[in-house]
């Protein structure tokens, strides 16, 4: 083979290798599910229970101890697990309980102060059936846009006597308890997010934890 031929073969092999690598990169990106740090709902005879908590700041050992965040917890607010990818069964009822320890930030759009996409159209706020809250009293939103689910989370008032600063937060500190039920659709990967500009210290309150999966965003793996 001539020198030119060898060069052509070399270039062709390199081109094929590069194309395969690009194809692998795209393929793996499209097929990889997010997050090892996931939490599964606890399924019973009446549906699946999912317990979450929201705090003003992550635990002190976190890489971002000042970032606001969601956590997965158990029914008694124990076993705090820093995960925002939740695994739930398809086509079933999910009963969500959120222990909300953070203060009031206020909504940018008052429209989402009303809950949508949940069974019965109302959620429980410390046991009281509620349709909407005052836009200025919202601390966070738990929204799964692809499912139409959106629930406002009432914030701990500014004059609270015993607020919790960093995760984990015991139930003895000031908090609100929000409960609601929704029905999962078919299998798939769905994203969820908070809609309150609650990221203290970031531009317009929507940077940092608001744009980082693992804090105020995550996925619902419906299996």
């Amino acid at each position, binding site marked *: 083979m001539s020198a030119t031929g060898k060069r052509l073969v070399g270039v062709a092999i390199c081109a094929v290798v590069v194309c395969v690598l690009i194809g692998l990169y795209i393929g793996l990106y499209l097929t990889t599910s997010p997050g090892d740090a996931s939490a599964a709902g606890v399924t019973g005879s009446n549906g699946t229970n999912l317990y979450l908590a929201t705090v003003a700041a992550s635990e002190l050992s976190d890489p971002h101890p000042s970032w606001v965040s969601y956590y997965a917890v158990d029914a008694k607010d124990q076993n705090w697990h820093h995960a925002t990818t939740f695994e739930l069964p398809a086509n079933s009822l999910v009963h969500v309980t959120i222990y909300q320890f953070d203060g009031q930030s206020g909504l940018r*759009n008052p*429209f989402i102060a009303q809950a949508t996409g949940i069974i019965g159209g109302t959620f429980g706020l410390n046991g009281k059936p509620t349709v909407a809250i005052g836009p200025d009293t919202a601390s966070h939103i738990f929204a799964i846009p692809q499912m139409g689910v959106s629930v406002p989370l009432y914030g701990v008032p500014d004059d609270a006597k015993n607020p919790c600063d960093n995760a984990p937060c015991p139930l003895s500190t000031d908090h609100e308890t929000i409960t609601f039920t929704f029905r999962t659709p078919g299998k798939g990967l769905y994203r969820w997010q908070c809609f309150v500009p609650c990221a203290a210290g970031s531009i317009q*309150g929507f940077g940092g934890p608001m744009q980082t999966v693992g804090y105020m965003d995550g996925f619902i793996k419906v299996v």
Partner: protein
Amino acid sequence: MNEVNHFRRVALIWLVSSVILTPIVVLAAQGIPPGDGTVQAAGQTTDNGVLLGLSTPVALAVVVFFIYSLIVFRERDAAAVLDGPPVRGHAGVQLWWIVTTTTIVLFLAGYGTVRMLTDGAGGGQGPNPIAKPTSSAAALPVQVIAQQWKFTFRFPTYGGVETNHLEIPANRLIAFHVTSLDVIHSFWAYQLGVKADANPGVDNIAYVQTKNPLTFNIHCAELCGVWHGYMFDTGAVVSGPQFASWIAQQRARFAPATKLLPPYAKQYFPDPQHRGG
């Protein structure tokens, strides 16, 4: 033996290929998006046909000469490769090329301007549109409110109700008032032929004349953060009675939220948040 007139050959091949391919390209252009779902979308489809129709002969002139040169002027004997004769300009060819392309460009500039000034061509025109369709005063106003990361829609003539999804009536002029509550987004519903930037503090108006019922996609067309790729929805153009029924349902469903909304405004400047950064 007569010397081959390459220019005449190339011109003939170009002419034949242009006569054959240009109508095919123009016809094919009618089948690509945005379609004819609205007057503006149909206008854009027509414009795409005009642009492609005019550019086809120009592109063919380049491609035909390129391929002809590769075939006819290729030196097959590598040993005979020598430096060729110097390339010199040809005033006649250059003149024709400049005159033709300049004419096409100026025509398209005029054509585009006229088309745009007719009704805005579905584009955002800012708060004071200069290309208003006739009867724009009777248009149904629909406010498109973008935020990270969803669109909501407010209907000032229906009690100021805000909705999660968008439905609009068929055979009706719609005035989209596009704005944002945070960063720059872009409201893009290509089947409607509408695309308008959503800027905080700006009322960006785009007109669309709907035709028959259809389903359309809504996308954000401005990279706006981590969930930009998920900022999409499906909307619908429905019949007048269906729209009346739908909007009545929305007013009842979102009555609690409507009470919490500020009075309708062309844009919103949210109060500083407690921890807005």
